[in-house]
Structure formats: C-alpha cells, structure tokens
C-alpha cells in the first residue's frame, strides 16, 4: 500500500511537472528567445563580470520588482558604457529595457521597477564603447505574478 502511494505521488508530480513545462512553452518567452533578443541587441559573446545586478531574491509582488544595474566604468570620453540591455526569460516578451549612455552620464548605474510574471531569470548585457560585452544574471522568485491576467 505504502509503495503504491509513493509511485502514485511521484507519477503525479512528474505529470504536473510536464504540464507545467508545456504551459510555460505556450505562454511565455523561453530562455532561447531571451538570448535571441539580447544577441539581436548586442552582437558578440558577452563575458562575465563588470556588471552588478541587484534585485531581491524573493519578490512578493511581481508587479513592481526593484532592480539596480550598475556597470564598472570610468565613464570618460574614451572609455564608457554605451548601452545596457535588460531582459527576462519568463515574461510574455523577453525585453525589459534598453539604456543608452553617454560619458555625460557620469556613472553607469540605473534603478527601475520591473514586472515579472513568474519566477524567472533576469539577464543584463552591457556594451562598452569598444564593443566588448559583459553580462550578469540573477534568478528572482516571484510569489504573485505581475501579468494582470
């Protein structure tokens, strides 16, 4: 009896997991689409480093999740951050925001509030004026999704 319960449970969990994957495929952007969105914006292979992505580990309300992105740079005429691309891999659309900086920005640090439909990963790619790319990502757990549906 005990054994049947156990198999039943595992089977049920497995089914739920499969169903979850199918639903996610249909409604949400996939990590691949997010990668595509980012590579369309910034061509090349980004390296880890220089970018800091600050966000809560658990967001109670996905409607407005505070996110801070900062990129290490002198921000001078010869060396500055040209652009920062922010994407999310579990929203209906992968794009979140694109920032274009100039040396007049002084410091490549921005703060914004993001909508997250479910638990997912935020990915940031920073493009320097010489074309090098840096990236950082972070998983954010969402208790209540921000999709209004």
């Amino acid at each position, binding site marked *: 009896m005990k054994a049947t319960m156990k198999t039943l449970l595992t089977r049920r969990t497995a089914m739920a997991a499969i169903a979850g994957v199918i639903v996610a495929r249909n409604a949400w952007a996939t990590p691949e689409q997010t990668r595509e969105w980012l590579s369309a914006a910034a061509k090349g292979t980004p390296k880890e480093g220089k970018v800091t992505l600050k966000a809560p580990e658990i967001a109670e309300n996905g*409607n*407005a*999740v505070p996110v801070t992105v900062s990129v290490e740079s002198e*921000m001078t005429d010869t060396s500055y951050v040209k652009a920062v691309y922010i994407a*999310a891999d579990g*929203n*209906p*659309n992968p*794009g*979140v*925001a*694109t*920032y*274009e*900086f*100039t*040396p*007049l*920005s*002084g*410091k490549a*640090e*921005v*703060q*914004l*509030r*993001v*909508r*997250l439909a479910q638990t997912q990963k935020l990915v940031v790619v920073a493009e320097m004026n010489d074309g090098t790319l840096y990236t950082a990502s972070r998983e954010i757990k969402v208790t209540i999704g*921000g*999709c*209004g*549906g």
Partner: protein
Amino acid sequence: MADDIKPRIRVQNTARKGEVIEVKTLITHPMENGQRKDAAGKVVPRMIVNALKVTYNDKPVMDVKLETAVAANPFMSFFVKVEETGTLKFTWTDDEKNSWTAESKIEVA
C-alpha cells in the same frame, strides 16, 4: 486619461563642478502591457511609455527604451555628471506619441 499623467523628478539644484549627481524620475502612467483582459474578456490594447530621453544643456545624457516589462508608473533613477550650470531636460513618449517633458535647473557653484 492623458490628463492624469504627470511626470515627477527629484534632483538637487546645486552641485560642484564635475560632480556626479543622482536623478530620480517617475511618471504616472498605467503601462498597459497588452496582455490584460477587461471585464468583458477583451484584451486591453498595449499602451506604454516606450521612451525616456534625458539631456543636459541639449547634450544627450541617456536614452531609455522601455518595454512592456517595466512596471506601471515607471520609476527610473540614474546619474548625470554636471560640469556647468544648466538645465536637465526629460522627455517621455508613449505608444500614441503623446509626450511629456520636465525640466530642472542645476547651478554649479
């Protein structure tokens, strides 16, 4: 509805030459993401603020492109380097090409 939309900015009015100062902006806007359905089950069309341009003495400081994943009443904070006295100007534009501007004078002591 467009009358309710009001930009707000917070930035200091004086600065030292070459100082990097923080700017906080917010515009009250519903940022309809085009996914939501109304009571009748019809999809509410997408209507978001899609751009914010920041200039200082007409020189570009920062351009932001916003997507549907930016929260309602988009809040943005960032930095600007001030070398001389001038005017910091902000322009928001939404999907219907409505635009709102705000200005703030900064004096370099």
